[in-house]
């Protein structure tokens, strides 16, 4: 099949949706499909051969954080040209309600359109106000996919209609083996965190509080953190004597990300919400890291109700500290969790997920003709 994928967020900055689109594109190419991805990216940025840059993205506040999006008539005409050149059997847009390329693609295209919904959004008045505008573009979508129950609920609440639940994918094999970072995990125990440090919903402050509770009794315990954000702001939250036991890696490469996951004794996901799937959890599972995660609905599902990782009361630093301490003291339990995680994660491998996505294409495409440019 000739498949056109639309990524609404900029290609230069790693993020859940962008990772999803590149993972899906590569899995589809492996299956023998012809794939083209359009994404916001500067023309001079190096992108994989299957990506068509749609121009610079503008950072704007959206859905509670700052997103880099492409909008306007210039972007729309780039999408139109891409659709004409691509002559696709199916158009697959991601996060169609985000004010970016995906919405524009729905606007200018006709024919078989599939959409994947990623984020959970609280009921917002603004979205309600834009509903009629969104509706005329979104009602063209013939098949909708949600990556998690929370994203599906967002759809049902805001826009009506239903979606098929197909979870996010990872390239499991890439995560299975990696050299830990030098000096890690060490003998005194290492806790790990992966995600943006300046995004409150990622819950780093909860983990820092938990670390401050645990550290006095465990003189060699360390905290390994990878992700974007201001290191000084993070260290300010840590009591002065503990600061040299908090290791900040900053934003890391994909390879170091995997090495980091292999460098920890317990991986912590203290997120407080806004997470519809929990990509970091699946990455940690694929790396066979023992996990302690917030008891969010999405996390509970991914971790099979606690079978593949411990859950603690969301937002409760003491509960996190207790759960992490229990795991640090019980290597057998850690091994059991890691083994369960590496089995549970197999169903999230891209080879499995992409096959399900192709079934959606097949359910939509043959009857609706080819993708055409409407405007």
């Amino acid at each position, binding site marked *: 099949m000739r498949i056109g994928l639309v990524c609404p967020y900029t290609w230069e900055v790693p993020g859940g949706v962008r990772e999803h689109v590149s993972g899906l594109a590569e899995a589809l190419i492996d299956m023998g499909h012809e794939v083209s991805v359009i994404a916001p990216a500067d023309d001079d940025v190096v992108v994989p051969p299957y990506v068509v840059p749609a121009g610079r993205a503008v950072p704007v506040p959206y859905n509670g954080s700052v997103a880099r999006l492409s909008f306007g008539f210039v972007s729309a005409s780039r999408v139109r040209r891409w659709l004409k050149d691509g002559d696709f059997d199916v158009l697959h847009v991601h996060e169609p309600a985000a004010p970016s390329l995906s919405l524009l693609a729905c606007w200018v295209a006709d024919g078989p359109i599939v959409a994947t919904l990623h984020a959970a959004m609280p009921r917002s008045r603004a979205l309600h106000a834009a509903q009629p505008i969104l509706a005329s573009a979104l009602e*063209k979508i*013939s098949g909708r996919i949600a990556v998690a129950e929370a994203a599906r609920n967002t759809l049902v609440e805001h826009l009506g*209609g239903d979606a*098929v639940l197909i*979870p996010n994918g990872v390239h499991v094999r890439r995560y299975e083996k990696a050299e830990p970072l030098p000096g890690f995990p060490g003998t005194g125990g290492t806790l790990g965190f992966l995600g943006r440090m300046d995004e409150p919903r990622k819950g780093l402050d909860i983990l820092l509080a938990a670390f401050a509770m645990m550290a006095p009794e465990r003189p060699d315990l360390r905290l390994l953190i990878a992700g974007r954000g201001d290191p000084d702001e993070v260290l300010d939250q840590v009591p002065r004597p503990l600061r040299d036991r908090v290791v900040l890696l900053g934003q890391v490469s994909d390879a170091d990300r995997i090495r980091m996951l292999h460098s920890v004794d317990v991986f912590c996901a203290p997120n407080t919400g806004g997470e519809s799937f929990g990509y970091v959890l699946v990455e940690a599972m694929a790396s066979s890291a023992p996990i302690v995660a917030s008891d969010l609905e999405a996390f509970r599902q991914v971790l099979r109700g606690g079978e593949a990782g411990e859950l603690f009361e969301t937002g409760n630093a003491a509960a996190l500290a207790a759960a992490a301490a229990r795991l640090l003291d019980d290597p057998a339990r850690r091994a059991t969790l890691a083994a369960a995680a590496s089995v549970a994660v*197999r169903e999230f491998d891209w080879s499995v997920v992409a096959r*399900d996505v192709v079934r959606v294409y097949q*359910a939509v495409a043959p009857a609706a003709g080819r993708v055409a440019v409407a405007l």
Partner: protein
Amino acid sequence: MTPLIFVIVIVVVAMMGVYVSWRAGRLDRLHARLEAARFALDAALVRRSSTALELASSGLLDPATSVLLAEAAHDARSPQSGRELAESDLTRALRAVFSQPDFRALLAGREGAEELLSELESASHQVFLARKFYNDAVAATQAARQRWLARLFRLAGRAPYPEFFEIDDSLVPAGAAGRSGADLPHLTGLL
């Protein structure tokens, strides 16, 4: 009537005309989507019943299971009393066949079994997906047709009023879904 009022009336009427024709265009597109979805659903149902029939006549199953499955598949292709009922019965028959103890273990390694089972799994997924997308299109079309504008100007023309297609199409019994809530349970391969 002063010329100004005349002009205003013309402009208002023209704008209303544009709006109504835009609405009509949207409704037309919804009907096209509905028709495509219906076509896909029919194709998926036919594929599933013929694959079930193929499995029933493959000689891989015991005679009792074969007859059970063949009857259900045949009924689905030429339903006596309502298509939705017959298709639901086929789903239940398939579920009963698949949930026999050690069903997959007993078939493992038999010539052609893996291909037929994965074909049946894929066909069942296709039914699930096509039905969901069809009902989605029905809901959107119904909502658009119920608007007063659509009713006043009869924007839907003579297109029949769409009805939902309600069947039991889940491959696994409710509550027994394997992976984290995914809608497409895998029967073959994996684990």
